[in-house]
């Protein structure tokens, strides 16, 4: 083989696409209501084809390094703004051993305080809680802080002549707001969120208008795997034909589109209402229509699915959804494209946030390591519905905490079909966690295109793990 041919082969890596099937962009281009620019673009890059070492999923020392190096430097989804609508409202966000009181201090200003008394360290608010405060008072000895973080009370100050109250404000993490989400970062030197996301990905997020949605359903569950394995189970549609055979009939899985944006954002677009290329010749358009699964079918209710004369499932579903979602959610969707109504758009904002800005699959996922066991993690799924046209915003749903062995279908309000899909996804994970430990092979082998998001994600992990540990300097983190 000549040197020239070798070079061309290397350049072609990652360029192969599912043969004999239309591309995602070709499917979307044929839709009746055209998609916006953020849908009609591609951003794939080949990032290598080496195996991913598996120690990162198996070793507790690696998990500790992540806590010291990665989680202390990255922008994390802490809560939604709707969790803290009024001044003094707070929401406690935990990540491993870290804990923050995320609170609104002004109409457009949110702060995140390290959740620990500066006297003897007691948490000022219990983990997993929310409420409203005019002060954050320690339940142990009563030292307290104003909502703006300044010290309010040192009990028996005569005994603490060495405490300068002006230097005892609560240390803060960085906070930025985007799309109704509150992001925090423990690194005071971190680049701004806009730079972290990059201009293209940020423009996508802004285009979705997710600030105009509310949490209709919130379900959490511990999963029996490392947090990165849980995330990576949702980064591709490659698994659909084996894991979710009931979905494949109406999902363009093997011809989904994969994109990477800078260092922290990646996505796929997986078209729905079309047959899987794995199943070409085996199903009719009516089958596709009948098998279509919605993430939020509760917004629709029961409906007869009729193809009509010469109709195509994708077009019929788009028209039907537009009218029914408008009615059910009291919103105007006349300008929303077929693709936004139907397709599965999955974006990862490294490290813990998954956004699905579509209308029929309107989820947000969050993944966090379990502080007690690196082979466990916390998974949350939130369904975001559009705020009604009346502008009256419903209060965010209370989280439903499922037991470790419960089905997602047991969560009240969960669409049964979608709950079953989540069960299928997560039931693979303990097998993978245990299999990685049992395997003679110490690396994951990834597809160049369909699994590019896994590689992109792990390369971000690698970059943070190569840095020195980041320890908070409590005095430097005070805002005076």
């Amino acid at each position: 083989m000549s040197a020239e041919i070798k070079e061309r082969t290397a350049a072609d890596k990652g360029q192969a696409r599912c043969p004999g099937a239309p591309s995602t962009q070709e499917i979307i281009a044929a839709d009746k209501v055209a998609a916006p620019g953020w849908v009609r673009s591609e951003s794939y890059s080949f990032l290598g084809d080496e195996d991913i070492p598996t120690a990162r999923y198996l070793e507790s020392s690696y998990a500790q390094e992540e806590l010291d190096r990665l989680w202390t430097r990255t922008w994390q989804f802490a809560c939604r703004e709707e969790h803290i609508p009024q001044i003094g409202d707070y929401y406690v966000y935990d990540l491993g051993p870290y804990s923050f009181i995320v609170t609104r201090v002004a109409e457009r200003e949110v702060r995140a305080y390290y959740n620990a008394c500066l006297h003897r360290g007691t948490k000022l608010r219990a983990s997993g809680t929310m409420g409203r405060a005019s002060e954050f008072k320690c339940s142990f000895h009563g030292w307290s802080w104003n909502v703006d973080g300044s010290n309010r009370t040192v009990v028996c100050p005569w005994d603490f002549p060495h405490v300068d109250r002006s230097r005892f404000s609560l240390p803060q993490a960085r906070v930025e707001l985007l799309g109704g989400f509150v992001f925090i970062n423990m690194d005071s030197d971190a680049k701004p969120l806009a730079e972290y996301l990059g201009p293209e990905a940020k423009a996508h997020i802004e285009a979705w208008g997710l600030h105009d949605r509310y949490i209709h359903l919130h379900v959490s569950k511990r999963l029996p795997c490392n947090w990165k394995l849980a995330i990576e189970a949702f980064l591709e549609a490659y698994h659909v034909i084996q894991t979710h055979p009931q979905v494949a009939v109406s999902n363009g899985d093997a011809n989904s589109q994969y994109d990477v944006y800078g260092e922290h954002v990646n996505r796929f677009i997986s078209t729905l209402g079309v047959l899987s290329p794995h199943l070409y010749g085996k199903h009719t358009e009516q089958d596709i229509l009948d098998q279509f699964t919605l993430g939020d079918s509760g917004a629709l209710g029961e409906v007869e699915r009729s193809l009509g004369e010469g109709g195509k499932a994708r077009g019929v579903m788009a028209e039907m959804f537009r009218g029914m979602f408008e009615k059910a959610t009291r919103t105007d969707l006349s300008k929303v494209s077929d693709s936004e109504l139907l397709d599965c758009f999955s974006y990862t904002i490294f490290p813990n946030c998954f956004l699905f800005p579509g209308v029929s699959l309107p989820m947000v996922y969050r993944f966090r390591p379990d502080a007690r066991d690196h082979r466990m993690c916390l998974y949350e799924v939130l369904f975001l519905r559009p705020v009604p046209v009346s502008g009256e915003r419903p209060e965010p749903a209370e989280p439903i905490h499922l037991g470790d062995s419960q089905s997602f279908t047991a969560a009240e309000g969960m669409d049964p079909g979608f709950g079953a899909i989540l069960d299928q996804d997560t039931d693979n994970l303990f097998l993978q966690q245990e299999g990685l430990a049992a395997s003679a092979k110490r690396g994951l082998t990834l597809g160049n295109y369909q699994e590019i998001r896994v590689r992109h994600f792990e390369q971000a992990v690698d970059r943070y793990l190569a840095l020195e540990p980041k320890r908070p300097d409590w005095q430097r983190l005070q805002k005076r």
Partner: protein
Amino acid sequence: MSASPGVDGARDPSGQPPVPETFVRVMAAAELPAGAKKAVDLAGKSVLICHSNERVYAVSNICSHAQERLECGRMSRGWIACPMHGARFDLATGRALNPPAKLPIATYEVRVIGEWIEVNADRG
């Protein structure tokens, strides 16, 4: 607006003759719009009347954790949070939902009769 269940003609589960009901008119229903709460003194107790989740509840205004008043706390979807240390309580049952409280708060029978909210603070 509806009241908590079991408010009319409550029977003693022991089979004893029913205790006479001593519902007291506490405020006009119009004074308590959705999302509002108001403390009243009743039979020597501070009682918090809450309108949440399209229902009216009556609970003790005193947190079971450190005896702080709940009336300035955040209320949402059938719970109230103590503003001082953050304990939350289920408005229907009084059950403590999170630390630092473990003990429940008292709940009282409440009913909406015509335009009035009435509470029986003798019976939790």
